[in-house]
């Protein structure tokens, strides 16, 4: 059962990788990276149970957090061309979005 789930998630990751390679726009690729990260979190969890070492879940949790921050950072970079602070005029704009 966990073997089946591992294979399924792995197949899903390969399909998403294809989209990452082929995706015509930047946003397709960001979406693929985000989906890939979610699949990775699930894969780490399942692999932990498969090998009888659920301690892997700590890594999965960390990966989930980093994946979110990474996605937001990529999007912010391509919107403002800067990861750090942006000047005041855009700070209000940023709060809304």
């Amino acid at each position, binding site marked *: *059962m966990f073997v089946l789930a591992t294979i399924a998630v792995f197949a899903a990751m390969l399909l998403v990788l294809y989209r990452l390679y082929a995706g015509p726009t930047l946003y397709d690729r960001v979406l693929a990276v985000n989906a890939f990260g979610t699949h990775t979190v699930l894969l780490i969890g399942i692999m932990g149970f498969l090998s009888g070492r659920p301690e892997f879940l700590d890594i*999965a949790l960390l990966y989930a957090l980093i994946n979110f921050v990474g996605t937001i950072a990529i999007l912010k970079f391509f919107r403002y061309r800067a990861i750090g602070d942006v000047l005041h005029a855009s700070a209000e704009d940023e709060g809304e979005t």
Partner: protein
Amino acid sequence: MAEMLIAGIVWVLIVSGAFFTVIGAIGIVRFPDFWSRLHAASVSDSAGMILLLAGMCVFAGWSLITVKLIVIGVVLFITGPTSTHAVANAALVSGLRPPEGKGLTGTEPEPLPDPAAETTPI
């Protein structure tokens, strides 16, 4: 008896979760344009994630592992839709517009200022 029941529940949850994960990935590959792919990604984000984590929770029983699984579930439950929204919003701001279905006119968003023009990074 109870163990068999639990094993059955775990089996159903894990297998259906794996099924929805693969469905979402197939959708990401199969859909023709960016805007529909977003929806395919959200299938594996919501159904696949919830079912797989629920299956692992039932399998682990009451222990610290369950708590960790629930924490992962809560984190993904909040950040998943947020990052989907962020990607969609960034695409909209960049000028990508979804193709409308037959006989439909989309609501045009407020004209957004070009972010590159108005902002100067420090």
